[in-house]
């Protein structure tokens, strides 16, 4: 009996989940997400004092966006400080098409992705000839310009008052509860993860990684830099646009305040803390960033019993902790949570003979 992993053909080597053990784990995880989690969500919410279902939905929505940013930043090496604005474009597109033009939801959501992809590519163009530094600045400009558009193009976006959106129904099933919406988000989140994972195994994905690692060498070897950078921008914006559409219909109101620079920074923090260039990174990072405020709430509530004014500082304190977490992660754990996960797994694989 072989002790270890031995592949006898390429097909086996290319599998994502290479052992039966892993496949069982994945099956178990999926079973939990589809059946187990909705069952435990309600009692857990009562126990913890906040809606676990809502948290899960937010994690799912932002995970899609984080995957998009990870594709751009982690796999193609293009930093973007404008992803919140792109998410806003998706949110407004879907809302306007759904509410004003009367499109069905299953059309308005992909349309949101496509429009956002277009917008993202427009702002991606100037940066294609530039290095990471300039790209950060260009996308930051995109963030401010789009934010301004959302605030001031009143006839289309409703200005700073925002736009009210209804919960959609999906082929006759009204997605009116958090739980029903959860299934939609779950399916899309899984689809986006699978697509990302598989994209990276194709010719396109390898070209993107080559562009990240040595773009000049990549170009010499025949990778069309312009095409692949633009493609990365397009797919990335599509992801985040869909996330925006989902967010709009979940949140029931969209306004420019949901898509500020701060969210762009949070997105970057998600992929960096999770691990740039790991599909798992987007997942871990999003869970971490969405849960962090809830975790912070506990010490805040204890402290606010002692200092009654303390609660007013909660928002600021949260930002402070976010900033510190970003800095500390970059200095002490630059590869993120996903890398840590891999080392832990490698450790247990060989335990107790780690050498």
């Amino acid at each position: 009996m072989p002790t270890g992993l031995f592949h006898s053909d390429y097909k086996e080597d290319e599998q994502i989940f290479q052992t039966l053990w892993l496949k069982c784990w994945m099956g178990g995880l999926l079973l939990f997400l589809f059946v187990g989690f909705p069952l435990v969500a309600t009692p857990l919410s009562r126990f913890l004092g906040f809606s676990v279902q809502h948290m899960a939905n937010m994690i799912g929505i932002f995970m899609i966006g984080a995957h998009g940013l990870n594709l751009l930043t982690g796999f193609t090496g293009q930093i973007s400080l404008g992803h919140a604005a792109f998410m806003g474009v998706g949110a407004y597109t879907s809302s306007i098409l759904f509410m004003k033009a009367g499109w069905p939801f299953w059309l308005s959501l992909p349309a949101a992705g496509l429009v956002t992809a277009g917008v993202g590519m427009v702002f991606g163009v100037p940066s294609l000839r530039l290095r990471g530094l300039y790209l950060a600045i260009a996308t930051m400009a995109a963030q401010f310009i789009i934010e301004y558009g959302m605030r001031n193009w009143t006839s289309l976006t409703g200005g700073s008052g925002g736009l009210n959106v209804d919960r959609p129904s999906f082929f006759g099933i009204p997605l009116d509860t958090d739980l029903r919406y959860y299934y939609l988000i779950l399916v899309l989140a899984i689809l986006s993860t699978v697509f990302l994972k598989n994209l990276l195994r194709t010719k396109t994905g390898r070209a993107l990684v080559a562009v990240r690692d040595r773009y000049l060498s990549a170009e010499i070897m025949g990778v069309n830099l312009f095409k692949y950078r633009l493609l990365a921008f397009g797919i990335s914006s599509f992801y985040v646009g869909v996330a925006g559409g989902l967010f709009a219909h979940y949140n029931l109101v969209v306004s420019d305040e949901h898509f500020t620079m701060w969210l762009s920074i949070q997105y970057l923090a998600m992929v960096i803390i999770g691990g740039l260039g790991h599909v798992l990174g987007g997942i871990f990072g999003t869970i971490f960033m969405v849960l962090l405020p809830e975790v912070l709430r506990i010490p805040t509530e204890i402290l606010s019993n002692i200092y009654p004014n303390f609660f007013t500082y909660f928002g600021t304190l949260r930002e402070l902790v976010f900033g510190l977490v970003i800095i500390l992660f970059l200095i002490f754990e630059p590869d993120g949570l996903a890398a840590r996960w891999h080392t832990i797994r490698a450790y247990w694989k060989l335990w107790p003979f780690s050498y």
Partner: protein
Amino acid sequence: MSPGILHFVQLVVTGLVIGSVYALVALGFVLIYKATSVINFAQGEFVLMGAYVCLWVIMDFQIPFVWSFLITMVFSVVLGLLVERLMLRPLIGEPIITVIMVTIGLATVLKSVVTLFWGTQIRVFPQIFPQKPLNFHGIVVSEVYLWTLGFALLFMAIFAFFFKYSRAGIAMRATADDQQVAQSMGISVKRIFAISWCIAAVVSAVGGILIGNINGINITLADFGLKVFPAVILGGLDSIVGAIIGGLTIGILENLMGGYLDIYFGGGVKEVAPFVVLVVILMIKPYGLFGTVEIERV
């Protein structure tokens, strides 16, 4: 002068004053970039920090402006040193995304520290420079604007001399030119990095105090710092002259666009116009007016 031209000149003059402060802050930004190749997203927060510390010293300790100004300068030097030593030095050699992100993290931390200590409502400096409007042939300029312009120009002149004649200044230029050669000539590159961050923090604080005297300060002053990006992109990321010219140009440009286009776009054009300019410059002349065009080799 006809009212149209008068309006135009008025806008240019006010823009010039704001632009001179942009130029000052952009100077600090370019300095860091040139010496250490770090893009500092916390430049605006240095502005914020400087303004608030100065105001705090004046108001809460009742210290005269000149002294509180000097105290703020000392504080900025310490802040610059701490940031360089604790955050940037461990990251030497790390990828650019990491370094950018760490300055963004720093910006978040500084901003929330300011909010925790001083709140978010707008605060006004006690009158230090007279606000009396002066009238030059119909162009009305408040005296504080002239002081601001004068101060900004004075600081720029000081730094011009510093770079041209002082040992530290020449060492900084050498480091910016070629780190390895500078090091082999006995220049401590680490020290130069530290000095760059100190100077950047100091000029930003000066900018913050000057703007605070004109408008009063609140937390959005940090966004003011973000306007250095259009300025430095226009001037060229690694050119000190470019930073000054870029700062002045962006100041004038945003004021003109604000003055003439606000009625068509429902206000706030001033806030976004510099960034539109930025995108356009990146499209047509990505290395700016005076920036070094990089030739890349494998």
